[in-house]
């Protein structure tokens, strides 16, 4: 949307908003004019939040969760089980499992799932880091908690092959999760149950 009647900063913010997923040019314009009309504090708070998002967060060097501290609070926590490792696709999946309060081991965040169609291969995910971590570590069990989608399941099957040499026991979440769904949107009870009923792969 290019419009000469609009001052450049307004036009620019509209353009930036419309680069976000799920936001078309109309919504982008609506958001921009909302900010323009609202008091100065809202726009300021937003800009600070955006800046800190990039400046003050990083990936934990152990589990690759997003964190402000290095290593992250979960990896630092000595009360958590050090011999149990749970592999998830996204930080939001980790968050969902934490909300379920049914798990207190370590995590590993892959940052996606294998999908050749989208050009995502094993090397685009934190898989080599996982293999290294498991071979050098002292784990009793690895829970492969990828999403119950084709991509998630294929990723789990691939991990199973890659980790077979380590000899560590591997489990998957029990079925009962809605097939084709996302961990992130699953309710706590179902997630807790799925964790309890995890199975050997």
């Amino acid at each position, binding site marked *: 949307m290019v419009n000469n009647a609009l001052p450049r900063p307004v036009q620019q913010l509209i353009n930036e908003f419309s680069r976000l997923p799920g936001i078309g*040019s109309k919504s982008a314009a609506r958001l921009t004019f909302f900010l323009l009309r609202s008091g100065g504090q809202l726009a300021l708070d937003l800009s600070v939040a955006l800046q800190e998002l990039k400046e003050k967060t990083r990936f934990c060097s152990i589990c690759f969760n997003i964190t402000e501290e290095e290593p992250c609070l979960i990896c630092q926590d000595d009360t958590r089980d050090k011999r149990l490792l749970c592999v998830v696709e996204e930080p939001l999946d980790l968050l969902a499992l934490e909300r379920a309060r049914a798990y207190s081991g370590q995590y590993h965040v892959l940052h996606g799932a294998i999908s*050749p*169609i989208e050009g995502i*291969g*094993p090397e685009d995910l934190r898989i080599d880091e996982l293999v290294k971590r498991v071979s050098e570590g002292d784990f009793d069990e690895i829970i492969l908690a990828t999403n119950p989608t*084709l991509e998630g399941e294929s990723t789990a*099957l*691939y991990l199973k092959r890659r980790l077979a040499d380590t000899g560590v026991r591997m489990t998957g979440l029990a079925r009962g999760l809605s097939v084709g769904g996302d961990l992130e949107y699953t309710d706590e009870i179902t997630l807790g149950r799925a964790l309890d009923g995890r199975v050997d792969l």
Partner: protein
Amino acid sequence: MLESGHSQKGWTSPQESLRYLFMHITHLSLTNFRNYGRLELDLPLGSILLHGENAQGKTNLLEAIYYLATSRSPQADQDSQLINWDAAEAGDSVVVGRLIAQVATQAGSRHIEIRLIQEQGLSLRDGQRSFRRQALVDRRKVRLMDLLGNLRVVMFLPQDMQIVTGSPSERRRYLDITLCQIDPIYCRTLSGYNKTVEQRNALLRQIGEGTSSQDLLPVYSDKLIELGSRIFARRSLFLGELAREAQRVHYEELTKGTESIRLRYLPRLQENGSGSRGSVGPLIALSEWLQENQMDQPAIQAKFSEALAAAQANDIARGATSVGPHRDDWRFWINGRDLSRYGSRGQQRSAILALKMAEINWMNAATGESPILLLDEVLAELDEHRREMLLSYVLKSSQALLTATDPAMFTAGFMKQSTSMTVSNGRVQPDDD
């Protein structure tokens, strides 16, 4: 008339006499669908004749019902074409086409709905206008796949002949749409299988280009074998049943015992040697093997796995998976010869008719309910005997919608037993008697 004919010998539901109480649409509501800006239409039981001039919306109405039952259009290649174009061009940021059927079944009444949603903003990913669909059963969102089975239809179209003469993909499409209306597990398996094929093909191309290593391939091959073997088995079972019934209908009802057709599954459990016109001999042998081993998943998996392994080098070179149910075919033979090559048009038409009638009987037997019949202009093409046979199916169904430009071709007797409505420029008006 109602008690005679095929119902004595064919598959009949135990509740034959109660069938009129079963599956039918009581109300249809369309918004921004094709040339229907807004339609609210009550539908009675029995046969309904939709008549009107050309280009008024007769076919579109049948298409709407077919779409609610199958989530597919018999003709549009892009579902976004289904949205009323005046609404789509009005400049609103979101345009919604809405199809709703209130369906009465044995299990009670159900409200089923599909929304076609077109957003005018260009999507960033592909620069296309973004289009999506939503399905609702009793006003709760469900996956499109889970909508299937709530409304079952058998459709007759003038272009059905392509099932005989067209490409294998036409025949697979027919097979899948029919089976999916009855078997939700098949439908889910098929959807997973198709996604696996796409992923595997993308991977094969990357391996061919040297941008991906081979160690991912077994993951997708294993998944393909697991899901594909179930599809092979289900199709074999289904086509076996359909073949027997189509053969019976054809022989007993359509050709008065003079001609015999045979329908055979050609499972792609083996690489095709010499292009698409390659000999079907080996596939027929595999078809027979599959019939005998239908219940033996490990045996089917072993065979499929062997075929995939044999094709692997070629598949990498071509960047596509060449064996598996996504390359299946099935065909008709008439008096021992391939119907698509050696059959006359009349013979091909009879075979299609036999297939569709068998489909009706098969659905009856599988669900205990008669499917809703949708007949678009097909009666005009039939000779008197076949027309009579087809009308006997119409009169036996709980609900059937027929279209015609000229209602005069129907007998007074038939008109008396059906409700007729005039379709004119996206409006439907019941006729006064």
